[in-house]
Structure formats: structure tokens, C-alpha cells
């Protein structure tokens, strides 16, 4: 349904995304995961024909984003990073306007309006001015706009940002319910969100795709350890065994003569224990450094705990 092939976007000197390629099949929900500034929004803007790519091709529903933008736009519902709301209109006026803008007939519009108002539970605020709505309602009105004409493809840029935990759960359930009938790409910088909602995850960092897989397999690839490289001058035969005996060490691998790769438990810094042992034994410490792996580095930044959300999930589980 969505095909991106070697797409590059440069803003002057700055390369925002660099030869990005991926595919999304019909009915699939794909998460676009990456830290802020990774190129998520840029990719989405190219897919929605907001801006052209510098190189490469993007196709949505079989239509090229550059050659047939009108066909693409008709089939895509898009929620930008900042919900595009007109403060001076009421919710109904706004949704009516966006529906007409998308070329909906009066009958489709009436049905669509009732459907999204119910689905996003914004019935209470239908006749209120958008300017007076809370952040959560504004986000939902923006989402209603994207869903209104029931497009086969949905592109949602950080759809749960600024919502409270209860609303986040509602929106995630809504997106999950779209799977199968709709093709969805959503961007997020929170790993648990991607694993909760999506069948497949593309991880983007620094404008490049660094990994692409199902959430389960990605988690398996994420080693729950920290790596330290140690080089000594005079290694002894029992050195590996002595290092392994330190508390917190999970694995010891000899890489070279005198160079060892140590794995320790995640979130535990035992570099000073290692240094003390090496110096005490007189092995002659030459080098001691932690190793940052690109993919894992990205993961570490993404694996934020959603404390408020976990609490809300727990209380919801308790009440039902």
C-alpha cells in the first residue's frame, strides 16, 4: 500500500533523511520510531505530498506522490505534528469544512461526522469553539479530521502527544481497531507505544533506517546488558575467571591477547570494581571503556518508562 524507495530529503546543506526505503502492506499498522529530529516528520510530509523528496520515489496506494499528488491526497488521512485547527471555528464547523475540502458529498459528510464524533467521543464539545478546548480534545479533533473521509491510508504524526494516560489508551485502542481495514503509519519516540499498537516497527535515527522488524523480534535483539572493553598489559590464565567472579558481570569474552569484552547488568556501572581488581592483581591496566552500539544506543534513548500510563493501565485492570 505504501512504498518508499531510496528517498532522500535535503534542506540546503542539511540532510534530513538519507536513502530511506520501506514498505507497508495493506491493513498493516507500522510504527515509525525514532528520537526527536530523526526524520520522522520529514518522511511523513513527503508521503502526504506536503513537500517533494530531493531524490527517490514514494508511492501510496499505487500512486506516485510526486506525479499524482491529487490521487494520493484523496486516499490519505493525515494528522500533522501540530493539529491543524482553526481556533475561530466550532468543532462541527471545522469538521464540515475539512470534509468539504476533501470533496465529500453532503450525505457522506453527515454520516462521517456522526461516525468520528462517536468514535473519538467529542460529542460533548461539538458546538464549542476550538480555541476553548483542552489539549486532549484538540488532539482528538485533529484525529477526527484525519478519519472523517474514511481514507484507506492514515498517516499520524505523534498521535498521542499531549494526552493524559487514559486518553492515550483510548487512542491506541482506536488505532488498533483500524488495523486490517486501514493501512496506518504512526510516528512515535516512545518504544512501548510502538510495541503496544503496531505489527511492525521501523527505527529511524539520524535520517537513516537502523532497524525494521516486529516488536517481539526487536525486543529479543535488544540485549539487556552493557558492554565494557578492557585491555591489560600482562594477562594471566585465570584472569577471565576472576573477572567473571565480580558481582554484576554477566559474560566475559576474550577478543584478543589481553583484550576482553565484558557484559554487565543493565543500568549498573561496575567500571571502578573492574579497575580495582586489575590494578590489585598487577595486570597493568591499559584501557577501560564502555561500548555504545548504534542500534542499542537508539533503543536506550527510546526505552522510556511510561510511569503514569503503567499506573493507569494497572488501575483499569483492577476496576474491570
Amino acid at each position, binding site marked *: 500500500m505504501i512504498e518508499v524507495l531510496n528517498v532522500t530529503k535535503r534542506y540546503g546543506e542539511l540532510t534530513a533523511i538519507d536513502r530511506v526505503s520501506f514498505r507497508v502492506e495493506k491493513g498493516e499498522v507500522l510504527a515509525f520510531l525514532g528520537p526527536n529530529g530523526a526524520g520522522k516528520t520529514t518522511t511523513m510530509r513527503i508521503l502526504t505530498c506536503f513537500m517533494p523528496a530531493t531524490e527517490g520515489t514514494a508511492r501510496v496506494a499505487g500512486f506516485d506522490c510526486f506525479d499524482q499528488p491529487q490521487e494520493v491526497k484523496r486516499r490519505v488521512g*493525515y494528522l500533522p505534528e501540530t493539529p491543524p485547527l482553526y481556533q475561530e471555528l466550532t468543532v462541527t464547523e471545522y469538521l464540515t469544512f475539512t470534509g*468539504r475540502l476533501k470533496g465529500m458529498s453532503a450525505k457522506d459528510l453527515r454520516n462521517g461526522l456522526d461516525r468520528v464524533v462517536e468514535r473519538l467521543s467529542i460529542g460533548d464539545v461539538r458546538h464549542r469553539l476550538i480555541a476553548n478546548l483542552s489539549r486532549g480534545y484538540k488532539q482528538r479533533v485533529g484525529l477526527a479530521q484525519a478519519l472523517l473521509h474514511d481514507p484507506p491510508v492514515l498517516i499520524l504524526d505523534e498521535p498521542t502527544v499531549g494526552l493524559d494516560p487514559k486518553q492515550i489508551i483510548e487512542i491506541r485502542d482506536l488505532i488498533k481497531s483500524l488495523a486490517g481495514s486501514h493501512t496506518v503509519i504512526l510516528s512515535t519516540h516512545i518504544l512501548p507505544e510502538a510495541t503496544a499498537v503496531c505489527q511492525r516497527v521501523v527505527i529511524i535515527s539520524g535520517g537513516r533506517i537502523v532497524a525494521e522488524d516486529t516488536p517481539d523480534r526487536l525486543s529479543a535483539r535488544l540485549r539487556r546488558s552493557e558492554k565494557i572493553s578492557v585491555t591489560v598489559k600482562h594477562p594471566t590464565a585465570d584472569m577471565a575467571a576472576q573477572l567473571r567472579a565480580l558481582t554484576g558481570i554477566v559474560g566475559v569474552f576474550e577478543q584478543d591477547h589481553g583484550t576482553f569484552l565484558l557484559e554487565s547488568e543493565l543500568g549498573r556501572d561496575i567500571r571502578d570494581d573492574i579497575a580495582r581488581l586489575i590494578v590489585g592483581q598487577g595486570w597493568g591496566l591499559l584501557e577501560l571503556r564502555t561500548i555504545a552500539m548504534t542500534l542499542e544506543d537508539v533503543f536506550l534513548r527510546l526505552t522510556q518508562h511510561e510511569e503514569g500510563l503503567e499506573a493507569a493501565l494497572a488501575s483499569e485492570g483492577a476496576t474491570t
Partner: protein
Amino acid sequence: MTPVHALVAKELRSYFVSPVVYVVGAVFLMIFGVLSYLAVVNAGAQAIRLMQMQGAAAQLNLNDLVFRPTFYSMALIVLLILPLLTMRLVAEERKLRTFELLMTSPIKLHEIIIAKFLSVYLVYLGLLALTGLVPLILSIFSSFDWNSVFTGYLAMALLGALFLATGVLASSMTENQIVAAFLSFGLLILVWLLGAFGGIIGDTPLGNTFSYVSFIEHYDRLVRGLVEAKDLMYYASGIVLMLFLAHRVVESQRWK
């Protein structure tokens, strides 16, 4: 309802829920009223003088004494007021990121530009229609040539359209509404002054070109009651050029 209709309707609604149209409209109507009132008072004074000199009631020409001076003065007023109506059209959408919605909807860029122009033009024509009260009231007390009043209104409608198209161009160049308003002031005054330069240089190719580019000469002839194809062409091509440039400006920004 097509997307263009929908956008025009939305723009009109946005205009009338904000105070801008009411304030700008009130000032515009007040100035038109005061200018025409002063012209009528002046015409009355002249009538009294003529009567004392000739001893008989002279037939005064209201077209010359009231409408023409008012329309001339209104050209400057319109130049000062219309940029305040156009400044928000594209700049505000950019600033509030709602432009992303328009640009990702199945409406073409030229349709967006035309809808924006049409909506503000309808507002302006509405204001212009309200000033029609002045000739209507005067027609109760006096008689004058309606034809040249109509060409005066045609002149104002065309001049306004050109100014508004220039305003759309200025608004598409920036995110800042104040900058947009000043850009259109600057552009319009520059074009106006070209006419003055043309007058100084005189009847040379350069002088004639300057005079032609400026709107004074074309406005003049229409206000005097002369409807010529070349003047209509001037306005039509000016409006199309400004809107085309606005289209190019927005399009080029997509590529940056």
C-alpha cells in the same frame, strides 16, 4: 460544494468572527462618508457664490464636484486599508500550521490562492456596495449622471482587486502578518510613485512605460467615465500576475 466553495465560505466566516473586518469596514465607510460630505458642503458653497455672481440658480455638476474628488481620494485610502484585510490570508495559516491541512487536501494550490483572493474580494465588494448609500441619498435631492458614478465604482472595484491580489502575494511571502501588511504597502506605493516618475520624465519610452505600469493613469480615465479596453486589460493582467507570483512563491517554498 466544491473544495473552493468550502474554502471561500470558511474564509468569509473567519473574517466575520474576527474584529478586523468590522474595524476596517467602519473606518473605510466613515472616511468615504466624511469625504463625500465635505465635497457636498464645498459644492453648496460654490453654488451660493455662483448665485450671487449671476443672480440665478446655476446648474451644478455633482459628478465633477462630489463624486470625482471622492473617488480620487479613496484610491489612497484603499491603498492604506486593504493590506490590513489581506495580511492574514496565507501568513496566518503558515504560522498556525493549518497550511499543512490545505496542502495535503485534494485541492490544488492555484485553487487555494484563488479562493483566498475571492473571499477577501467579496468582503471588499460588500464594503463598496455599502458606500452606494451616498449617491442614492444624493439622487433624492439632485440629479447627476449615473453612468460616470458607475464607472467610478468600476474603477474602485478594479483598483481594489489589484491591491488585494498584491496583498495575497505579500502574505504568501512571510509568516508574519505585520511584515505582510508592510510589504504590500511598500509594493503598492512603489508602483504608485512610478507614475509620478513617469510624469517627470515626460513623453519618452521610459516615461511612458512608468506611467503605464502605475495604476493612476488607468484609474483616472475610468473615474472620468472613459471605459477603455486597455485599462481593463491592465487591471486584469495585473491581478493575474500577482496571483501567479503568489502561487510561485508558495510552490518554491515547498522545495526548500
